[in-house]
C-alpha cells in the first residue's frame, strides 16, 4: 500500500567500500600513491574479515602483505580502519557489517 514500507523478505544487497591508500595501492594495480576504491558486496554474516578475505583473494600480493603467514589473523604491515577508526576500537575483525562501511587499508608507518 502506498506510504507503508514493504517488509524485506530477505536482506537487500549492500556494499562496503574498500579504500586502499598510499603504498598499499601497489598491491592492487596502483602505483603506490593516492587512493583506489573498490565496492565490495556485503551479505548476511559478513564481517571485515570475510570481506577482506574475498578482496585479497583477487590480489595475491595484497593477500601476503595483509594476512599473517598462516592467514589466521592480520599481519602487522597494514593498518585496517573501519569508518576512520582502527580495528579494535568500535569494530573488530569479526564484527558484523551492515553495508555502507568504509574499510581503509593504510600502510604501517615506522616514523622518525
Amino acid at each position: 500500500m502506498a506510504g507503508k514500507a514493504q517488509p524485506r523478505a530477505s536482506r537487500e544487497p549492500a556494499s562496503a567500500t574498500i579504500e586502499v591508500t598510499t603504498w598499499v595501492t601497489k598491491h592492487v594495480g596502483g602505483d603506490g600513491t593516492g587512493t583506489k576504491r573498490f565496492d565490495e558486496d556485503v551479505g548476511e554474516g559478513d564481517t571485515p574479515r570475510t570481506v577482506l578475505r574475498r578482496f585479497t583473494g583477487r590480489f595475491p600480493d595484497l593477500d601476503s602483505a595483509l594476512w599473517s603467514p598462516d592467514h589466521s589473523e592480520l599481519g602487522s604491515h597494514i593498518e585496517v580502519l573501519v569508518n576512520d577508526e582502527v580495528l579494535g576500537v568500535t569494530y573488530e575483525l569479526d564484527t558484523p557489517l551492515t553495508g555502507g562501511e568504509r574499510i581503509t587499508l593504510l600502510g604501517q608507518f615506522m616514523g622518525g
Partner: protein
Amino acid sequence: MSPTATTTRTSAQPATAATHAYAGKILRVNLATGKTWTEAWSEKDRREYLGGIGLGAKILYEEVGPKVEWDHPDNRLVFATGPLAGLPVWGTGGLTVITRGALTGGATSTQANGFFGANIKYSGYDAIVMQGQAKKLSYLYINDDVVEVRDAAHLAGKDTWETQQALEAEHNLSGHRLSVYAIGPAGENLVRFAAIHGDYGHVASKNGCGAVMGKKKLKAVCIVRGTKALAAHDTRGLIQAADDIAHDLKTDPSTSTLYNFGTLPGVVNLSKLGVLPIKNYTTNLTGDVDMKEWEAPALRGGFDHRGHQCNACGMRHCHIQVIPKGRYEGERVDEPEYEGWSGAGWTIGLTDKYSVSWLNTRIDRACVDVNEFGWVCGWVMECMEKGYLTEKQVGFRLTWGDTEGAYKLLQMISHRRGFGDILAEGVKRASEKIGGKAAECAIYTQKGASPRGHDHRGRWEEMLDTCTSSNGTMESANPTFQTEVGAPGRINPFDGEQVAKLVGMIRGRRHFEDSLGGCTFTFRTKMANLARALSAATGWDYRLEDAVRFGNRTAAILRAFNLRCGIGTEVEYPSARYGSQPVDGPAKEHDIRKQWDRMLDVWYETVNYDRKTGKPKRELLRSLDLGWLEKDLYGKK
C-alpha cells in the same frame, strides 16, 4: 691531487683477536686543560655495555653526580658508537650522544648518523668522552692518534653548515673523509633545546645536548676518516647477516617504503590516523590541502635531489635537494625527515612543501631540535591568534604558516634576542613564565621533554613512553616486530591497559639498537637478526634474550640516574594541551586523561619498577646482575 694527500697517515695496525669489531679504546678529553688520553675497556665491559647508549649510561652514572647539573664543567658529553660501526652493515656511521641534558635536567640519549661513527672507529676509538669547559671557543680535531683541542674563534657564530664547510676548507677534506658534528648559534647561546648537527643533515637533537656542548665552549668535533684496521670475527657471517637484514628492509611490506622513501610516507599515513600534529594540536583536519601533494613520491619528486647516504647505507632515504621554485628557488637543502615536515610544517600551520623544506634546513643550521621548535613556534602563533600574547611582547606579528616570521623567531631564539630569550628556555618554561591562558596551550611533558612530531593523543603508546622515559625523548616506542618478544601484534590503541602493557613489554629494544653504532632505520629488523650480526662481528654468542636483558639493564641504569637527579614519578604526566582530548579528527572520541593513572599503574607493573618511588625493583635488578645498582638505590640489605 688526492684529497688524502694532505693528511698525515700512520701505518695501518692489524686487527687482533681482542679487538674484533671494537677499537678497544675510549678517547678522553679534558677541554679545560687540553689534555687528551685513551683508556682501554675490557672485553667484559664491552659485552656488558656494548657501546652507544649502553656505554654512555655507564659513564653518566659513574661520573656525573647529582650535584653536577647540565651546565657544570664536570658534566660529561659522550659521543659513542658501537660494535657494528664501520663494518659492512647498512647505516653504520651511527653516533649516540649521551649527557645530562638541559631541558629535563636528566639523562639524554640521542642518535644521529652520517660518517662520524665509522670515522671514530677507524681512528681507533669506540667513544669520545669530553669533560671540563674550554677557556675559549674551541673545536676538537681528531686524525688517528692526533687529537687536539684547537682554537675555534674563526667559527664563532657560524651555522652548522658554514662550520662544516669552513673545516672542510681548512683541512682540505670533505665527504666521507671528514665528519664534523657542530653546534650552531643556538648552542653557543645555550638555548635549552639546542642540538648537535653533522654531515649535512644528521642531528643529535634531544634534550638540549647542543647547549651542553656550547657550555663547554666546544664548537665542533671534527674527525678525519682514520686508518686503523677494523675486522669482524666472522666476516662471511657478518656479511650474510647484513645481506639478510638488507633483503628484509627491501622486501618486507612495512619497511620497503622506508627503504624507498625514508620517513616521507609519514605525513599522509599519520593524517589518516589523526596523529599528524596540526597547528599546535588545535585541529586534526587537513582542510583543503591537497594531500596527494604530500605523498612520498610527490614530496621527493617535486625537487631536484641526489642521494646522500650514510656510511655503508643502501637505503634511498637521505637526500640533498635543490628547491625548484618559489621564494627559495635554487637553495640547497637537506630533504626533511617526517619530523621536519611536521615540526617545521604542519605544527606551525605551514603546508607549502618548498617553504617547509627550506625552513627545516634553517632550523638544522641554527641547530635546535625541530620538534621543540615546532611546539615553541606553534604555541606563539596560537597565543597571538587568541590574544594571549601580544605583538608588543613578541616583537612582531606572527601568524600560522608564516615562513619568514618563523625564521625570524628562530633567529631571535638562537641569539636570545628580545622575546627569543624567553622562548630559548623551551616551551614549558616559556609558557609557565607567561602564565594565564597561554600556559594552557603549550605541548610538553612535565619532565620538560619535548614530544616527537606526532599528535600523541592519537598514539597513546608514544605519550606514555615520552612521559615515563629516562632519556629525554621516547625510550621504547614505536613497537617494532614486537611479537618477537611475546607482545601482541595488534592492540586497541585507545585501551590504556593494553597500551601500557605493550610499551612495558617492548622496553629494551631501542636501547639495544642504539648501542650498536648504526641507524634506527637500517636496524628495523628483528632483534634476532641484529644479534646475529653482533655475534658475527664480535665472536660472541649473542642471542635475542641477551639483547632484551641488555636493554633492560641500560634502562634501569638510566632510570636510576634520573632518580638520583631528583626526577621522580611526580612528573610523569603530559601538559594540559599535550594530554587533552582532540576536538576533531579520527581520535576525537578518546580522552587519555581518563585512563592515565591506570596506564601508569600497568606500565610500572609490566616493567617491574616501584610505582611510588619509580625505582626498578630489587628482584629485577638482581635478575639483571645489577647488584651494585640495587645497593645504590636501596642501601645495604
